């Protein structure tokens, strides 16, 4: 898959997550945000900035 297509699909995912969060259903948002923080932002995005980062799929 080309880089453009991968990024376009990733953007679709992000817009979808944004749409869910904007509905402001606190119960659902809490579950979604927990998963985003513990399985995506912290292990992949933030750890990627550390020197010698070895990002892996959880």
């Amino acid at each position: 898959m080309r880089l453009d297509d991968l990024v376009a699909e990733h953007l679709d995912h992000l817009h979808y997550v944004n749409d869910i969060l904007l509905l402001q259903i606190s119960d659902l948002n809490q579950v979604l945000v927990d998963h985003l923080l513990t399985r995506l932002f912290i292990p992949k995005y933030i750890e990627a900035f550390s020197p010698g980062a070895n990002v892996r799929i959880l």
Partner: protein
Amino acid sequence: MQYIMYGYCSKNFFCFLQHTNDFPLYTEAIKFFNNSESMVRIAVRTLTLNVYRVDDKSMLQFIRDKTAAPYFSNLVWFIGNHVLEIDAAVKKVAEDSGASGGTRGLVTTEVKKAKYYEVIDMTVHFIEMTT
């Protein structure tokens, strides 16, 4: 199905939930979240958003208790996989360009072309929303 797709959901439509304690329309649909056909994936996203939008406590309780954790876990896992695929694609662009001095420029051009700055913008927006 079309009613859900086009946003004609109502509270009355979901009253059967209280009797059956199941919601096959939703639970079956989310199984196709990562279908290979993009139209199917879009349909599933539209359906789930329209279902969430309906203001029915018992339905939202059902979704929260029975499906939210596994569904969002899958969603985040797929997003994470995509992040790693993008990472590999960017590295491949750098490798394919060879060891010439223009590597950084080429990668930067590819990343700009792919609108990756929009991804970064959205990601920062989410981190702000979730913390």
